[in-house]
């Protein structure tokens, strides 16, 4: 089964993905609203998996919603909360219900989230989860046993192009590709010159790269990310630009900045697509796309 996202990746068109966060609780209205709004505008949407180690409705449930509503889900899976039995089982379940795109993540420490005393599992990590997917596809599980019916996936991973130091990160990036990553969604990028030099390096690998673009909503939010999120560097001129927005206009400015960056990346053909993260403001994704002159 080749997913529509995989077909889009192979088509060579400029790919657009975005993020949808499942709710904290079982009120699915807002999530359903976001899915309805975005499903026909983007090539696929990522369902976050207890993002930042904050317990929420599961990504698998969110991915199923997207599927049932006629959209194309990318199931995010971290290795923080499940051992290899649970991860493989969930992959089988996903495939059986038509979910064929998976983004493999190691996952943040539980200490960063809202259940700080929980046990972090990390039985596998991102590159081993990718390899596990390729093993399941061959009809075997990680214990070497035969499967009765094997799944098929389009598997991806992430990279932080501005990690410091960068060299160990790039070795990991290459291992993820070796393990079977077909696409990469990057951590948020703000400095296009640095990203271009990363892409010069990354182009040599047979993998599609979707640049991560985060919607800046205020200057304090940008400063907070610089301070607290590894590998995210919002340059001072961008912070100044958003700080100078008229009162109540910071978000509009953020949309303009994100749109401008995407437009440049698209026009200069810097990478294969964009992954828009409008953290908590998913309803603004169409506005960002409009600001970038993108239509799907």
């Amino acid at each position, binding site marked *: 089964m080749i997913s529509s996202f995989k077909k889009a990746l192979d088509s060579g068109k400029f790919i657009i993905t975005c993020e949808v966060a499942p709710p904290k609780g079982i009120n699915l209205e807002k999530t359903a609203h976001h899915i309805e709004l975005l499903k026909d505008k983007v090539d696929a949407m990522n369902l976050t998996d207890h993002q930042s180690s904050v317990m929420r409705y599961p990504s698998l449930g969110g991915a199923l919603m997207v599927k049932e509503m006629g959209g194309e889900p990318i199931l995010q899976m971290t290795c923080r909360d499940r051992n290899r039995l649970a991860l493989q089982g969930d992959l089988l379940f996903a495939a059986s219900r038509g979910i064929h795109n998976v983004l493999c993540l190691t996952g943040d420490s539980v200490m960063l989230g809202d259940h700080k005393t929980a046990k972090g599992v990390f039985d596998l990590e991102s590159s*081993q989860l990718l390899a596990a997917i390729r093993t399941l596809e061959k009809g075997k599980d990680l214990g070497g046993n035969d499967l009765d019916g094997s799944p098929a996936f389009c598997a991806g991973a992430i990279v932080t192009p501005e990690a410091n130091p960068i060299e160990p990160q790039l070795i990991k990036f290459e291992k993820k590709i070796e393990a079977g990553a077909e696409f990469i969604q990057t951590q948020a990028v703000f400095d296009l010159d640095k990203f271009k030099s990363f892409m010069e390096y990354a182009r040599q690998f047979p993998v599609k790269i979707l640049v991560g673009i985060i919607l800046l909503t205020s200057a304090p939010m940008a400063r907070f990310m610089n301070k607290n999120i590894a590998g995210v560097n919002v340059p001072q001129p961008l912070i100044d630009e958003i700080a100078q927005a008229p009162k109540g206009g910071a978000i509009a400015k953020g949309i303009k900045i994100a749109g401008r960056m995407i437009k440049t990346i698209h026009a200069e053909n810097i990478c294969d697509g964009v992954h828009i993260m409008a953290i908590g403001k998913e309803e603004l994704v169409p506005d960002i796309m409009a600001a970038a002159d993108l239509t799907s």
Partner: protein
Amino acid sequence: MIRSITKPKSIEEIERLLDGLNRIFIIGCGTCVTLTHTGGAPEVAAMKEILLESGKLVTGQIVVPVACDNLTSEILNEEMGKIEQADVLLIMTCAFGVQTVSSQLKKMVVPALDTLFIGKETAYGQFNEICTQCGTCIIGETGGICPVTNCHKGLVNGPCGGTNQGKCEIDSNKDCAWTLIYNRLMELGRLDSMRKLQGPRNFLGEPTPGKYEISKS
């Protein structure tokens, strides 16, 4: 030398554990907890003061040389009179010592410390965890630095995305193990070993509780 590294439990927790137990015998240790200032003679004396102030009766106290040693029971025998008068033993040693004493004396014990890790003193007054005894040692491929222990997530294929300026995502005072390993392997000209995709770890080195016998052949 490897050491058992401990930190004091809060007084509130100790008070809760001692609730209803009024006659107390305190045991410290002259080895690791003396080094970490958590259960040597000064700390035992200070604990006695705290207990007396809160209205408890201290039937006696002792700092044994090596609490986890099997000889501890003989040393404690000399204090048997005072120990027998006590409702409970408040033990200011690591949990090896607490369990040694509890198995020898068959008396109610309350640990006064939390045992954090087995580590070593890496600089004066600083203790680091170096090995968590995982049972399947992999440091032959990581330049002799243990990612199972030094990486917060025990990752074996390189850094997670949380590395920040060479530090770990959970604590900017802790080095990211994978920055250390990268630098070491680079120095050694062995980065190839970091490029090798490692399979899932074997967690079955020795199932907990570990047990090992010298084979009689």
